[in-house]
């Protein structure tokens, strides 16, 4: 077990944890965090595997750097969308009307009602 393999398998672990959270967690912010965890796992696999001979490979590092920046922008956009969704629908999950009857949703405050 070389250190590079250790990094790669840690990335695999992060990926599956993120996948589990993405499937099972209902809250949209948690889903987003889980999805980010998956992305971090992919980055770790790429950077970890590429340093096979003990020295880092600049090409995957550059690709991962690009990926990190895109992931940040996508996360920020997702947060904007989630807040907009919460603002319009009053709930932070994607569950249908059946789930909202159990009191998971907060009272709806629409912009139109206030004006």
């Amino acid at each position, binding site marked *: 077990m070389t250190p590079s393999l250790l990094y790669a398998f840690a*990335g695999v672990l992060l990926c599956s944890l993120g996948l589990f959270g993405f499937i*099972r967690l209902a809250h949209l912010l948690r889903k987003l965090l889980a999805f980010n965890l998956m992305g971090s796992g992919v980055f770790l696999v790429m950077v970890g*595997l590429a340093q096979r001979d003990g020295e880092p490979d*600049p*090409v995957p590092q550059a*690709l991962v750097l690009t990926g990190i920046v895109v992931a940040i922008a996508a996360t920020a956009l997702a947060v*904007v969308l989630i807040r907009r969704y919460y603002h319009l629908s009053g709930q932070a999950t994607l569950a249908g009307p059946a789930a909202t009857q159990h009191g998971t949703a907060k009272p709806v405050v629409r912009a139109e009602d206030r004006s």
Partner: protein
Amino acid sequence: MMRLLASALAIAVCLVFAGALAAAVWQIAGTPAPVSLPGLLADNLAASGVEHPVTAVLLNFRSYDTLLEIGVLVIAGIAGISMARTTSLEDPELRTSDSLLYALQRWFVPLMLVLAGYLLWAGSDRPGGAFQAGAVLAASGVMMRLGGIPMPFLRPGLLLRLGLALGFTVFLLVAVASAAGGEAFLAYPKAFTKPLILAIETVLTFSIAMVLLALFVSAPVNQALEPEEGDPG
């Protein structure tokens, strides 16, 4: 019962996924690479115009990725802005009345601006570059925003649009110009490699910081009846 079953199913799916991924990683680690990318890079580093291999990959050998990346960022920024109404900077709710933040801000903002400039310049021969510098620049913008310093260029208007599109536009112009000049798309002319890369990195830094800052500013969704930033009166 149903929840338990769903959880078990999800765990099973994740275990299968992890197993397949681990097997793939193991197989990749076992096979020797057909081409030594670091060696190839080291051989061609002198032709790239910069001394740091990561920067050389980002802005010369794989500059196509970087061009598309800044395109994605601009689209994300525009989508984020169009989703939300930005409240006025004078809104007292947006200001933090934290005196520690005010005190620290006076020290940190100039320091962070200098750090961003250093990171941008350092990218040519050591770790650093447009993305790190842009992130630091955006962070100092976030701090200024939290401290209530008015930043009129964030209002939806000409300056914001220019700032968002500047990096992508300049990058695309360089790419098209080199293609029109007889070289390949995105192949810089040999004599101007370093100045071109430096210019692209500078505008990229501005645009990345602008996109991240605009996304931060547009994140709070407020009631529609509140005055929008840039509205007269």
